């Protein structure tokens, strides 16, 4: 029968909105407001899964995020593994199955959207129970920007399952009143279904809001399914409540064993009876109300075993009135049954021994081993804990951030104390952010002084067999496992955790962590205060990777940087290469061409006629100031102060350790004005590096650095006929070698556009780099295309650029170098000034290690087989026969291409004492096989440099 355990009227569910769902292949009916767990219980389904190792049947122990064993795999509407049934809201189209331990990731793409929201609050309140509500109300009334987060679908916390009147009304009426007032406040944000899961430095709290999960298949497409809230709060109020814990007794894992407060929640919030015949086992006052309420709902409570030798009078009387037998000084020693409990064994606990065993029939054992304040966030925030022996629990002690903890989260037991805490800390938090605040008035509530709990962690077993005294139901870890750990000499709870896996499951020990501490303390005969807890780390609850990624997925995963000419490249059919965040044209295949053919054609065009490349991604830094030349002398290995206005010089930068950091050109625009280029990938790093020296070491130098990388778009016009093409656009600008020599620059008007033209060559050919502001790039590019059309002007990409430069032996910093290479290793001694007194890196060139003769040098390699293209990165060894490992390595291939100019393959490599091996044969290991290569000079093409003048 549908919903046979559902009460006719009780609960917060909406009986007008029935929702069918499927669990383990069977269709059931739930209602809006149900969790999967409450709907299953309503339908009499107690066994949800099996133990991950033991395969024993497992039911529903808890009612919220603490659930250790009722795990499900949600299959529809979103595939999601390893969720607790107590945290899944019943929604349209829900289909789930029970899971023993581990779920499966789906291979289906997740169609949902996820996003992030940054928020700022004066007072952030975590937890919307009585404490949090009153704290938020107090802060809101003080005029604070308030955020109130609660992980449940509606606010109220334990008040959702409370029946004692508040201000003479049902508690939920009071909750509604507070919510209505908060909703009317400007600058108050209330977020239900939002779990604060991380508390980081400087009051930075991260929370996950489940925005549309509860709508199932009806979720709107454009709304993010989950949202990550990144909240910076000036003050934080933690009203995170407390988690009830179990006791380790024999067979305490059977379906039908449930935490007492969870039973009360199922009863009052969901209108569900957890069973038909109940035994209660408690160490504290808390479970009594569950027993009384269930009895009131018509469920026979066979016995209430209270481990304390004396029972509070008022509770004893209330039980008597409800026809509940209270057994003081008693425990539940064990359970029996198959898939579900059919009975429990009660016994008297005296002097640490059990006596007077008694069997009772029941289908449910409600247990309360005490309450652990939910100190997770407080502890993540750096707060210290102390053990409170009255509560038998760890409570917040010293805070390190501006955080206030109240209510059950600091160990308050009664509703009156929780409400008082909320008002007090709401006012305190408001005052610390400079607001004058009065505590919101306390609603009238029944006062009661609680009796202390007893610290009972473990029910002793006369047989000494503790293999079925479960501590962690998620990990199937028992007291016997802990005994094995302590027998092995472990004392620290951190070590016991790792040895036994207690507390490492999906709920990270919310029901088992402190229990494990208590069990270890019992075994070792020490006070739990000496042992402490394991470390509470984020996330408080499991968070999906999709939620963490937010919008950083697909096309928005990482910024794609494009040049002003990107659309032209796309239209021309370019294949693109990622260079850092930039998309650069790699090569431009014509129909039917593969990469090798396209690159070959592009290379030939550049060497024989004219070709052009978008070089806009080069970093560009404008340098001005009285001391600009002096500054550049200090940061480049090359002398820059002697550069004449109008001319350009190649420059190398090293780190102080003498290793090459970047290279580029320096053009002198005026006495105190330069423009530098950097490599594409290093632009930001170079600017940072220069600023660091300027600001921290040489603040007295008057130098100003400005990035102009995007301001200037750069077109490299390359090849023997580049001058012809340029002349067609350049008007009366003299382009002959005498008027416009190599490594000079001129400002010019090209086809009506102001441009800066530099005679720089990265290919060895006659070449010009034409710089125009971003908005003119498309025009100048198409003008050049048109002007060179009759000469077969050919756009080329980065691959051709690499071939052309490698044929000339020009290294690429970051490809042919790796941060362990000096200018001398590269054979660039000519770019290292001998005259300058000092520059960054100079001193390191005379360090013994840098001055070694057998360092790796950049050399050329010619495979003996001229068709063999060596893989970049392949290792180089001396001999054709590989000796037994370890094989001495000589170096590796850094660049490798097919050269149209050479008619064969070639490579650059870093080789130990490479310059001394020129002409010798070494071996490259290709597919585990040494193949012969000849070491050469790195310059393969036009050694005389005759071609750069055209």
């Amino acid at each position, binding site marked *: 029968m549908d919903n046979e355990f559902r009460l006719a009227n009780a609960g917060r569910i909406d009986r007008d909105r029935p929702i069918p769902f499927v669990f383990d292949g069977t269709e059931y009916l739930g209602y809006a407001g149900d969790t999967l767990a409450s709907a299953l219980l309503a339908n009499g389904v107690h066994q949800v899964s099996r133990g991950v190792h033991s395969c024993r049947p497992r039911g529903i122990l808890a009612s919220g995020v603490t659930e250790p064993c009722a795990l499900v795999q949600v299959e529809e509407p979103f595939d999601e593994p390893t969720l607790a049934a107590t945290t899944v809201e019943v929604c349209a189209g829900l289909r789930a199955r029970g899971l023993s331990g581990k779920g499966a990731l789906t291979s289906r793409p997740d169609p949902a959207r996820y996003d992030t929201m940054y928020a700022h609050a004066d007072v952030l309140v975590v937890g919307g129970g009585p404490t949090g509500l009153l704290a938020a109300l107090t802060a809101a009334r003080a005029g604070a920007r308030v955020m109130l987060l609660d992980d449940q679908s509606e606010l109220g916390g334990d008040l959702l399952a409370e029946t004692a009147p508040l201000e003479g009304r049902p508690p939920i009426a009071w909750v509604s009143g507070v919510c209505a007032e908060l909703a009317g406040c400007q600058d108050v944000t209330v977020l239900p279904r939002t779990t604060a899961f991380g508390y980081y430095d400087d009051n930075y709290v991260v929370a996950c809001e489940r925005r549309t999960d509860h709508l199932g298949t009806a979720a709107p497409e454009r709304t993010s399914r989950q949202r990550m809230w990144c909240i*910076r709060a000036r003050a934080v109020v933690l009203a995170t409540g407390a988690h009830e814990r179990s006791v380790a007794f024999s067979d305490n894992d059977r379906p039908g064993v449930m935490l007492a407060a969870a039973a009360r929640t199922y009863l009052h919030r969901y209108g569900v009876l957890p069973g038909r015949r109940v035994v209660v086992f408690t160490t504290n006052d808390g479970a009594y109300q569950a027993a009384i309420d269930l009895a009131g709902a018509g469920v026979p409570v066979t016995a209430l075993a209270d481990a304390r030798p004396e029972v509070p009078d008022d509770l004893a009387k209330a039980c008597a009135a409800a026809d509940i037998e209270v057994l003081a000084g008693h425990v539940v020693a064990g359970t029996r049954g198959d898939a579900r409990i059919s009975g429990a064994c009660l016994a008297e606990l005296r002097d640490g021994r059990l006596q007077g065993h008694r069997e009772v029939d029941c289908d449910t054992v409600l247990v309360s081993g005490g309450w652990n304040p939910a100190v997770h966030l407080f502890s993540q925030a750096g707060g210290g804990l102390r053990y409170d022996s009255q509560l038998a629990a760890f409570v917040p002690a010293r805070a*390190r951030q501006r955080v206030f903890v109240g209510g059950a989260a600091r160990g308050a037991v009664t509703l009156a104390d929780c409400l008082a805490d909320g008002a007090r800390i709401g006012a305190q938090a408001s005052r610390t952010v400079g607001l004058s605040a009065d505590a919101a008035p306390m609603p009238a509530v029944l006062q009661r002084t609680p009796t202390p709990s007893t610290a009972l962690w473990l029910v002793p077993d006369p047989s000494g067999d503790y293999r079925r005294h479960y501590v962690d139901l998620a990990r199937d870890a028992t007291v016997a496992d802990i005994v094995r750990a302590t027998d092995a000499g472990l004392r620290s709870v951190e070590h016991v955790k790792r040895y036994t896996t207690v507390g490492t499951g999906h709920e990270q020990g919310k029901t088992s962590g402190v229990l494990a501490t208590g069990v270890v303390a019992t075994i070792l005969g020490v006070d739990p205060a000496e042992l402490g807890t394991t470390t509470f780390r984020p996330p408080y609850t499991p968070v999906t990777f999709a939620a963490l990624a937010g919008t950083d997925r697909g096309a928005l995963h990482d910024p794609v940087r494009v040049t002003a000419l990107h659309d032209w490249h796309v239209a021309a059919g370019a294949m693109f290469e990622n260079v850092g965040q930039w998309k650069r044209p790699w090569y431009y295949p014509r129909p039917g061409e593969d990469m090798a053919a396209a690159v070959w054609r592009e290379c030939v065009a550049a060497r024989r006629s004219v070709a052009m490349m978008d070089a806009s991604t080069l970093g560009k830094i404008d340098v001005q100031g009285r001391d600009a030349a002096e500054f550049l002398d200090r940061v480049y290995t090359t002398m820059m102060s002697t550069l004449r206005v109008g001319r350009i010089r190649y420059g190398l930068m090293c780190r102080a350790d003498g290793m090459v950091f970047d290279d580029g050109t320096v053009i002198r625009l005026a006495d105190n004005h330069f423009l530098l280029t950097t490599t594409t990938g290093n632009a930001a790093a170079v600017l940072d590096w220069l*600023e*660091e020296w300027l600001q921290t070491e040489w603040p007295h130098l008057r130098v100003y650095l400005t990035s102009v990388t995007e301001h200037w778009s750069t077109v490299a016009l390359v090849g023997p006929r580049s001058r012809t093409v340029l002349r067609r656009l350049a008007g009366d600008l003299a382009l002959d070698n005498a008027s416009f020599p190599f490594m000079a620059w001129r400002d010019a008007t090209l086809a009506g556009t102001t441009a800066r033209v530099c005679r720089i060559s990265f290919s060895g050919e006659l070449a010009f780099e034409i710089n125009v502001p971003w908005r003119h790039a498309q025009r100048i590019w198409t003008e050049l295309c048109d002007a060179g059309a009759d000469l077969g002007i050919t756009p080329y990409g980065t691959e051709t650029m690499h071939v052309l430069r490698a044929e000339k032996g020009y290294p690429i910093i970051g490809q042919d170098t790796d941060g362990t290479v000096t200018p001398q290793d590269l054979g660039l001694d000519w770019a290292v000034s001998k005259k300058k007194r*000092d520059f960054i890196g100079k001193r390191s060139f005379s360090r013994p290690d840098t001055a070694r003769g057998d360092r790796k040098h950049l050399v050329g390699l010619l495979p003996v087989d001229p068709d063999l293209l060596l893989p970049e990165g392949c290792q180089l060894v001396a001999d054709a026969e590989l000796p037994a490992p370890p094989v001495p390595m000589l170096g590796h291939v850094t660049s490798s291409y097919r050269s149209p100019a050479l008619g064969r393959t070639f490579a650059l490599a870093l080789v130990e004492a490479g310059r001394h091996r020129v002409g010798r044969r070494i071996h490259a290991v290709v597919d585990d096989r040494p193949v012969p290569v000849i070491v050469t000079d790195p310059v393969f093409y036009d050694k005389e440099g005759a071609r750069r003048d055209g």
Partner: protein
Amino acid sequence: MLIECPWCGPRDETEFHYGGQAHVSYPDDPSVLTDEQWARYLFYRDNPQGRFAERWCHGSACRRWFNAVRDTRTHQIVATYRTGESAPVT
């Protein structure tokens, strides 16, 4: 972390990057140093448990380098101050 940039005010740590130990000055004349002394400048840095003066750069905003005293045990930034100023007594 929230880091107080001396120019832009408090900002998320994602806007900053780290520059290592502060107040390690580039030697006046590296050429007169022994290899040992130069190696000390290049490679040796303090690694205290507790307060540590560090360089940070507000790279995503004003691009200014500045110094911060950070407690390496708690990540708490005790003070930030401008380059050229000496570490505050904390």
